C-alpha cells in the first residue's frame, strides 16, 4: 500500500461524497449539474495499470448510480472516459507523455485545458445519451452536454487549483 494508492482511495471517496451530497443537488437554472468526479479518472497516475483504472472507474460510476437512481449511466460514461484517456493524453501532451512525466498541477496551461475539455465532453455526451436514450431529443442532449460541461470545467479548474501542492 503505497502513498499513491492511499491518495487514490481518498480521492474515490472524496469525489463520490461530494457528488452525491452537493453537486447533484445544485440544479442551476433547473437542470445544469456539474460532475467533477470525472477528475478521478483524469488525474489517475499515468504509470499505473489500465485495467485497474477501468475497474475502479466502473466501481465509482456504479456507486454513484446506486445513489442517484440512474441505472448505469455514470458507470458507462466513466468506463468510456477511462478507456479514452490514453488517447487524450497523447493528443494534449504529445506522443511521449509517459517519459516526460506530466504533472497536472504544475501550472494551468492550454495543454491541461484541452485535456480537461476533451475528457469532460466525452464523459458528458455519453452520459446524457445514455440517460435520455433516444435521438429524438438530440438538441436537448447537446444543450445539456454543453452547459453541464462548462460548469464541470469551471469546477474542475477550481479543484486542480486547490489540490496544487504548496511550494516551499
Amino acid at each position, binding site marked *: 500500500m503505497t502513498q499513491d494508492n492511499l491518495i487514490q482511495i481518498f480521492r474515490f471517496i472524496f469525489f463520490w461524497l461530494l457528488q*452525491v*451530497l452537493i453537486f447533484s443537488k445544485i*440544479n442551476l437554472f*433547473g*437542470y445544469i*449539474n456539474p460532475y467533477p468526479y470525472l477528475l478521478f479518472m483524469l488525474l489517475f497516475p499515468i504509470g499505473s495499470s*489500465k*485495467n485497474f483504472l*477501468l*475497474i475502479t472507474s*466502473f466501481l465509482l*460510476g*456504479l456507486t454513484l*448510480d*446506486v*445513489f*442517484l*437512481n*440512474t*441505472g*448505469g*449511466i455514470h*458507470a*458507462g460514461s466513466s*468506463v*468510456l472516459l*477511462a*478507456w479514452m484517456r490514453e488517447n487524450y493524453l497523447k493528443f494534449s501532451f504529445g506522443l511521449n507523455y509517459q517519459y516526460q512525466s506530466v504533472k497536472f498541477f504544475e501550472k494551468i496551461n492550454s495543454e491541461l485545458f484541452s485535456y480537461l475539455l476533451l475528457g469532460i465532453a466525452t464523459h458528458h455526451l455519453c452520459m446524457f445519451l*445514455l*440517460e*435520455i*436514450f433516444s435521438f429524438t*431529443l438530440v438538441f*436537448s442532449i447537446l444543450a445539456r452536454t454543453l452547459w453541464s460541461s462548462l460548469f464541470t470545467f469551471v469546477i474542475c479548474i477550481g479543484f486542480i487549483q486547490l489540490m496544487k501542492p504548496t511550494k516551499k
Partner: protein
Amino acid sequence: MQQIIIYIFKNSTKVLFLLLFTLALILTIQNHSYHRSSVINSANKFSGGVYEKVNSVNEYFLLKSENEALARENARLKSLLFNQTDSLIQNTKKKWNDQMYEVSRCKVIQNSYNNFNNILTLNAGKKIGVEPEMGVINHQGIIGVVEKTSDNYATVVSILNTKNQINSKVKHSNHFGIISWNGKNTGYVQITDLPRLATVKKGDTIVTSQSLYFPEGIPIGAIDKIYTDNKTNYYTVDVRLFNDMTNLGYVYVIKNYHKQEIENLQKESILK
C-alpha cells in the same frame, strides 16, 4: 481454443473495457424499461441510510415552509370537519366502499427533478406496508407511484418521469386523458389524448380519475395551454402542477385494498 485464450490475454484491457461498458449498458437499459426496472436503486439499506442522515440535516432548513404547509392542511381538514352535515348517512349507504383505501404518512428523503426519469426515495418500506404500485400524494396533489420497496425504504417514479402514465380527468366533465411528462419543465405535465369533444378552457382543474393507484379526485394541476392538432381528434394540453415538485417533504402513500381484486378481474377478462 488456445488461440482464443491467448488473444484474450493479449487484449485484456480491451476485453475488460467492453465487458464493463456492456454491463453498464445493460443496467441502463434495464432502468429504462418501466416495470421490471432497476437491479440497482436507492431503496437499499446502505444508500437509504445515508440519505436519511443527510435528510435529517436538510430538514432543519425547511422547518418553516413545512410548518406552513401543515397549518394549511390543518385548515383544510378543519373546514371539511365543520362542513360535514349528513356524511354519516352517506357512509352507511356506501358500506361496500368501506376501507377501500388506507393512507399512511412518510417522508421524501431524496428528491430528484433535473433528469428525464426522476425517481424519489421515501423513508417507508415493507415493514409498514408500503408495496410497489401504490400511489403517492401530498396535501397539494399527486407525486407519483411506488416502484420498488425494501424493508425500510421505497423508491417512487415521480410524475416528472417520461415513463410515467397516470389516468386523469377534467374535474367538471369526466373526460379522461393520460398524464405524461415531456421532460422539459418541472412545473408542467402534458395530457396528449384528451378528446376534442371535451369542452375545456384555460384554468380548468385536472384531477386523478379512479385507477389502481389513486382514488378519484386528487388534484393534479390546472390547464395552462391548449394545443389543437387538426390531424387527430385529440387536444394536447399543458397542465401546470399544483405541487412544487422541487420542494417535497411529508407525503402520503395510498394503499388500495381492492387492487388485487380489480387486477385479477381484468386479467381474466383479457384471457377469455
